[in-house]
């Protein structure tokens, strides 16, 4: 398939994402597959660039809304999950992340968007859900062999509280796990206070979901032997 046609597919896909037209976006993906693009091409040349241009590329202009983020990430996750088993070779997993919202926090939207971004970038993600106890973050990270614990908080008290990321940090320290596991945080409070992540004991934070794959890649490198 020629580059021109690929660009046309990507442009149509982006238009559907901007219009939050899920059915339209999925139809374009299917037509691309029917037209001869391989699953790898669809994921790496349509889905991922679409998601990254959508979520990352225009954020500085404040033109992209949460509903568009949500949709782009949701489609990326759905399509990637469906197409990876059809790849000619098994893709290399770039790292394993356990993710959840902090204890007492029932807001799962941000986490959902981040999961889509990470999965599309070939990270393995274990979703622990909402209102996750700090003990569970650590136990599950060890159980699945994750390198990164991702904690989402929508409220200040769940970001800074004693049962949030601070406690996870304390547990890693007490159990001698700090050289094996990294903590990344995200959510509204961190966007209003750029140094809050340090205060809660995290190694990094992501302003947008689109930044997550790059930051997590760095964190994984730091702990992988």
């Amino acid at each position: 398939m020629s580059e021109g046609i690929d660009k046309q597919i990507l442009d149509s896909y982006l238009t559907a994402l901007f219009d939050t037209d899920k059915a339209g976006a999925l139809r374009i993906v299917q037509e691309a597959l029917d037209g001869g693009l391989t699953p790898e091409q669809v994921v790496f040349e349509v889905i991922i660039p679409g998601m990254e241009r959508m979520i990352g590329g225009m954020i500085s202009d404040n033109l992209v809304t949460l509903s568009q983020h949500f949709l782009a990430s949701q489609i990326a996750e759905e399509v990637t999950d469906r197409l990876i088993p059809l790849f000619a070779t098994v893709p290399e997993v770039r790292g394993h992340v356990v993710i959840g919202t902090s204890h007492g926090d029932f807001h799962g939207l941000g986490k959902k968007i981040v999961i889509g971004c990470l999965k599309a970038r070939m990270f393995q993600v274990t979703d622990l859900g909402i209102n996750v106890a700090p003990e569970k973050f650590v136990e599950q990270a060890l159980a699945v062999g994750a390198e990164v614990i991702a904690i989402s908080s929508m409220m200040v008290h769940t970001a800074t509280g004693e049962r949030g990321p601070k406690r996870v940090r304390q547990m890693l320290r007490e159990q001698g796990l700090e050289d094996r596991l990294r903590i990344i945080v995200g959510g509204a409070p961190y966007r209003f206070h750029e140094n809050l992540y340090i205060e809660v004991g995290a190694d990094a934070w992501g302003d947008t979901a689109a930044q997550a794959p790059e930051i997590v890649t760095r964190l994984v490198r730091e702990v992988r032997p």
Partner: protein
Amino acid sequence: MMTGMERFGALMGGRTPDRVPIVCNLLDQGARELGLSIREYYARGEHVAEGQLRMREKYGYDTLAGMFYSALEAEVLGCRNIIYADDGPPNVGHLVINGPRDIKSLHVPDELNEHPRFRELTSCIGILKKEAQGRFPVLGVVTASFSLPAMLMGVGPWMELFINGDSALRDSLLETCSLFCSRQIAALREAGADLIVYVDPLASATFIQLRKFRELALPWIIRDLEAHGPAGVIFFNGGGRINPILADIREHVGIGAYYLNPYDDITEARTLLGPHSLIAGTINDIRLLDWSPDEIEHEVEKIMLAGKRAGGFIFGTLLMPCGIPEENIRALVAAAIRHGNHAEAEAYR
């Protein structure tokens, strides 16, 4: 010196008050004031009223918040589990809507005061109204029909429904939520609320594009306020940016006061709204957790400068986190009083 009510009255009448009115949204902090847990505090309307009265007296701002926590609206509509924290607002722990059947069976009580939690809320407003003796406006707070479903079914599922879901089901849910919204406004007004803060985060430019706002959210803002009318209503951002939607709301709904997000530009808001609407400019109150008094002073001065240039200005906070030290709240209000007063701000400089 004017009272808070006189300051708001002057602004709404197109006159300049002695200083910029200050809205300081301290909610859960009232529990600490009374030495109660947050659960104990919100159990009784009289506790909340006492907490609000004490905090207003202590810090000296201009309004009284007749509000408990947002999740109370979900309780009235059937939420069976509210999660209480030690240091933050109570949260929805049970989603009322888990499928289309729940939307169809969602019921708005004819008489909201029959619900014990709502009765505590209106009793709180009644006490505030009585104790205020006309000196400070009592604020009643309602969630817009377009945002309420996020509390009933979760933000993600609600987004899926309104973006790409069954439009008949979506409209059915919005009709129920709109009925609830307008009944709440009537009940809060009747209880004594002087102003209604109308909260619509999902309609903000942070959540949806302008085109979607016009298509999906704006008609429901019109509908929510149809019975009550826009008088005495303040459109509150709820944490999202609202400058891009201001002109539409002004034109189609006629609301006269807009409570901006800290990231909305005050000067731009004035241009978009024209000369007559009131604008509340907000400080990024999460930074009050660790800003020094000097940093607070500087930030307040900046906001006041832009606000006074814009005119028709109110100074406000979002929902102030519990962890903000008392000295920072005092520094905030003191700076707002100083820089909100034209003559004294000049003298201070």
